[in-house]
C-alpha cells in the first residue's frame, strides 16, 4: 500500500485528528440505561415478529457504531490516496523515459517549459494509473540514470522529478532506451514511454516503445542554457558557453548578444537559426569577476520571456601567496608569473605561505622547501606516484633532478607526488588538518630539469589552488588534480535537431501505454468512495426502517 500525494507526517496528523474524532464519536455514541428484567424472552419474540431481529437488527447499535467507524476510516483512508500495489493477477511494468535535452527547456505559449510539461504529464499519468501498473522513471541526459525505481514509493516521485533539470548538451536517448529495456528484462507486460520533443524511431524491439511528444509547436527562439567553465590553471578566467535553439516551424534570423550589467555588448552575432536546431556558442577568456551577464535574443517570435537569459559569472580572486625571502629562484619566477597568484609582502594577509626549512610549521596552508637532509643518491629520473590519477602529466624520461635532500621525515600517511629511486621528492602531507606541500630542493636546483618545464608551473599552480581552498576533499582531490577534463562534453559545440512535426499533446497517449491491459483495476480510492456510499446507503436504509436511531 502506498499513500500517494501525502506525506507520512501529514497522514499522521490527519489520522491523529480523525482518531480524536473517532474517540469523540465513541464517547458520544448511544448508551442505553441498563435495566434488569426477569426475562428477555418476550422482547425477543416481539422483535422477531417485527423482523427487527434480523442480522442487522441483532447488531443494531454495534452495527451503527461499526458503520460510523467504517465511514470515518474509509474517508481518512481515501485522503491518503492509497494505491494497491501488486494485487492484480497481471502486473504491468512501464519505464517512463524523460528526455532532459536542452530543447526541453524551451517554453511554450503557456509559459511552461516542455520539461515541466513532461514532468506534469508523468505525474498525472502515474497518479491516475491503477494499482496494476508499476512505474520507473529514467532521465535521458548525457548519462542516463534511474530517478525512480519500480519499488520506490510513489510519494517520492514528485520529489525525484523536481530534481531533473534540462541538460545543456546532447543527451543519450538511445542509451536511455537500452537502460529502460534492461530494467524491464523479465518483467511482466513491459512497456516504455519516451517523453521527448525530438523525433525518435521507436524501432521494433521486444519491448514496445511509445513516444509521447510534449508541447505544442510554436515559433520560438530561446536561450536554453548557459554555463561558465573556469580554466584549471587560472580560475579567474574561463569560457562562457550558451545554447540557443529554434523551436519554431520556420527558419528565423536573430541578433544574439551578450551584454554585461552596464549594457556593454561583450559578444554579438546576427545568426540564422533553422527550425528544430540548437546551437552552442562559447566566449573564451571571460573574467570570473562576478558580473551579471544577459544573453539576449532579438527576434520576432511568439514567446519573448525566454529570449533573455540572466547569468551571473562566478567571482574568483587570485590566491595571495607570501614567500620567504630566501626561496629558490625558480619558485619565485613561477609565483610571479602565475595568473591566479598574487604575491603579497605581509604574511598576515596571505592565503598560502612558502617557507624554507621552518623550525616550526605554522597553521594554515604552507609550501615547505626542504634544503637539508640526506642527499647521497640525489640525481636521476623522476617518476610520479602510481597512486595519482594524473593522465595528462607526462614525465619525459630525461626529466631528472639535481642534488638535494630526500623527504624521509614525512608522516606515514603523506601522499607522494614525485620520487626518484623510491625516494620522495614532493608530497602532500596532512598535519593536523592542515595540508602542506613539501618540495625537495633537488627539484629546484640548477641541475634539475623539472622546474624548467611548464609542468612545474601547472603542478605548483594547482597545488596552490588546492591549499588555498583549505585542502577540501583532501586525498581524493589530490589524486584527481590533473584529470583531463577536455574529454568531457561540457564544451561541446555541436548542434542538434529535434522534431517539430510530431509534437502532439500528451492526451493522445494510447490507453495501453498506461497499463490498461496490464491488470488495470479500479483505483482503491474509487473503491473506497463506493464502499462509503454503500455504507451510507445502508445506514440511511436502517434509519428509515427505524432499526437505528
Amino acid at each position, binding site marked *: 500500500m502506498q499513500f500517494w500525494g501525502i506525506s507520512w507526517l501529514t497522514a499522521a496528523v490527519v489520522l491523529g485528528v480523525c482518531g480524536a474524532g473517532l474517540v469523540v464519536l465513541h464517547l458520544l455514541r448511544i448508551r442505553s440505561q441498563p435495566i*434488569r*428484567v*426477569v426475562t428477555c424472552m*418476550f422482547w425477543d419474540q416481539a422483535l422477531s415478529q417485527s423482523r427487527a431481529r434480523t442480522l442487522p437488527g441483532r447488531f443494531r447499535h454495534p452495527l451503527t457504531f461499526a458503520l460510523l467507524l467504517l465511514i470515518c476510516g474509509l474517508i481518512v483512508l481515501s485522503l491518503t490516496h492509497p494505491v494497491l500495489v501488486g494485487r492484480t493477477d497481471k502486473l504491468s511494468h512501464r519505464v517512463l523515459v524523460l528526455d532532459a535535452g536542452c530543447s526541453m527547456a524551451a517554453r511554450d505559449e503557456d509559459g511552461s517549459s516542455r520539461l515541466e510539461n513532461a514532468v506534469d504529464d508523468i505525474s498525472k499519468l502515474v497518479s491516475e494509473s491503477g494499482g496494476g501498473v508499476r512505474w520507473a522513471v529514467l532521465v535521458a541526459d548525457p548519462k542516463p540514470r534511474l530517478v525512480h525505481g519500480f519499488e520506490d514509493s510513489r510519494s517520492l516521485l514528485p520529489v525525484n522529478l523536481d530534481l531533473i533539470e534540462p541538460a545543456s548538451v546532447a543527451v543519450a536517448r538511445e542509451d536511455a532506451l537500452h537502460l529502460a529495456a534492461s530494467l524491464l528484462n523479465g518483467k511482466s507486460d513491459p512497456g516504455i514511454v519516451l517523453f521527448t520533443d525530438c523525433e525518435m524511431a521507436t524501432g521494433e524491439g521486444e519491448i514496445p516503445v511509445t513516444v509521447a511528444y510534449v508541447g505544442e509547436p510554436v515559433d520560438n527562439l530561446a536561450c536554453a542554457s548557459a554555463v561558465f567553465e573556469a580554466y584549471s590553471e587560472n580560475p579567474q578566467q574561463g569560457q562562457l558557453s550558451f545554447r540557443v535553439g529554434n523551436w519554431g516551424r520556420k527558419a528565423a534570423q536573430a541578433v544574439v548578444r551578450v551584454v554585461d550589467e552596464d549594457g556593454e555588448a561583450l559578444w554579438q552575432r546576427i545568426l540564422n537559426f533553422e527550425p528544430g536546431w540548437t546551437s552552442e556558442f562559447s566566449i573564451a577568456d571571460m573574467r570570473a569577476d562576478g558580473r551579471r551577464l544577459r544573453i539576449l535574443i532579438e527576434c520576432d517570435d511568439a514567446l519573448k520571456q525566454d529570449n533573455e537569459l540572466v547569468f551571473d559569472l562566478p567571482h574568483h580572486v587570485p590566491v595571495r601567496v607570501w614567500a620567504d625571502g630566501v626561496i629558490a629562484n625558480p619558485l619565485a619566477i613561477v609565483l610571479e608569473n602565475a595568473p591566479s597568484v598574487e604575491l603579497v609582502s605581509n604574511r598576515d594577509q596571505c592565503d598560502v605561505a612558502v617557507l624554507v626549512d621552518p623550525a616550526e610549521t605554522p597553521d594554515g596552508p604552507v609550501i615547505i622547501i626542504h634544503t637539508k637532509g640526506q642527499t647521497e643518491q640525489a640525481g636521476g629520473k623522476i617518476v610520479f606516484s602510481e597512486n595519482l590519477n594524473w593522465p595528462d602529466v607526462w614525465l619525459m624520461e630525461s626529466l631528472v633532478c639535481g642534488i638535494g635532500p630526500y623527504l624521509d621525515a614525512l608522516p606515514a600517511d603523506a601522499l607522494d607526488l614525485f620520487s626518484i629511486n623510491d625516494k620522495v621528492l614532493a608530497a602532500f602531507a596532512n598535519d593536523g588538518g592542515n595540508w602542506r606541500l613539501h618540495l625537495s630542493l633537488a627539484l629546484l636546483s640548477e641541475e634539475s630539469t623539472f622546474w624548467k618545464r611548464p609542468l612545474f608551473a601547472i603542478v605548483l599552480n594547482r597545488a596552490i589552488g588546492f591549499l588555498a581552498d583549505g585542502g577540501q576533499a583532501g586525498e581524493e582531490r589530490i589524486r584527481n588534480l590533473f584529470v583531463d577534463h577536455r574529454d568531457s562534453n561540457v564544451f561541446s559545440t555541436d548542434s542538434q535537431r529535434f522534431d517539430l512535426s510530431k509534437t502532439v499533446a500528451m492526451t493522445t497517449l494510447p490507453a495501453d501505454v498506461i497499463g490498461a491491459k496490464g491488470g488495470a483495476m479500479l483505483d482503491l480510492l474509487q473503491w473506497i468512495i463506493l464502499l462509503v456510499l454503500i455504507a451510507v446507503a445502508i445506514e440511511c436504509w436502517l434509519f428509515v426502517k427505524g432499526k437505528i436511531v
Partner: protein
Amino acid sequence: MAELFSSDFIESLRVVSIKAKRVSPRGRHAEHRSADMGGGLEFQDYRSYLPGDDIRRVDWNVYRRSGELFLRLFEENEDLPVYVLLDESESMHFERPGRAEMVVAAVSLRQMDRVAIYPFGADLAPAMGLTGGHGRLSGVLKYLEDLKPSGQTNIRHSVGHFANMKLRSGLVVVISDFFDPCGVEEIVAVLSRLRHKLVLVQIARSSDAEPGIDGEVKLVDCETERAIDLTVSGALLERYRQAYERFYQSLHDFAVRGGGAYLRLDVEVPILEQLDELFINGTLTI
C-alpha cells in the same frame, strides 16, 4: 417469612383447599376431600346397584321400602400425594417481595397431604421427601426458606427428569414463572408427559405484562445476563403484550385441557386476596 407465615396467616389458609376428582385407591386416609365416592364417613348420594358392587354398601332400609337395591355412596377421604415442582431459578428471586410458592405449599400441607417438594432450576435439585400434617409445616417452610437461586430456568430438562421418576399418581403443582427460553411449546410438550393431575401456578408480576419502559434501553436478562439494546416504541410494546398474553394463554389452555388448573399469582398483590378470587368457596376443584 415469619410475618408471611404467621399463625393468623396460616389460619386464614384453612378455608382454602384443593379438591381432586380422582385419586389413587392405594392412598392412605387424609383430609384431602376427594370428589370420588368411596368408603369415607360423610354420606354423599345413592345410586342403583350394579353387578359387582360391594354388597356391604347396599342400603337395606331403602330396599325394604322400595324393593330395589341402592348403594349408599360416601365421600372418600383419600391421601393425595402432592408433588410441588418449585422453580428456584434466578428469575424467581428477582425483586420478589414475597414467596407465593410457599403459600401453595402451605395449602397442601394444611390438607395433611403428603407433599414432596422438588426444587428445580437448570435441573432438579435434591427434593424434600413426602411429608404431611400440620406439624411439619414449619419444617417445610424452613426448607423453602433455605433454598437458594439455582441458575437459569430449564423446565424442559427439569420436568422431563421428574417425569421419568416412577412416582405414585398424584397432584403435581408446578410453581414457576415458566420463563424458559425454550418457549411455551416446549414447556407444554414436557408437561404433557406427566401422568398426574396438574396445577400450574404461575408467579408473575403486573409490571411484566405492562413494562413501563420507553425509548432507548438496554435490557439485561437477570438469569443469562444477556443484554439487548432496544428502542421501545408503542408498536413494539404492543407486540410484547401480544407475545406475553399468547404465552399465558397457551399455558392456561394446556392446563385446562388436561383437566388441571392454572393459577396466576401476582407477587405484587397480597396473596390472600388472590386466593379468594381463585379458590371458589375456598376450594379449587380439579
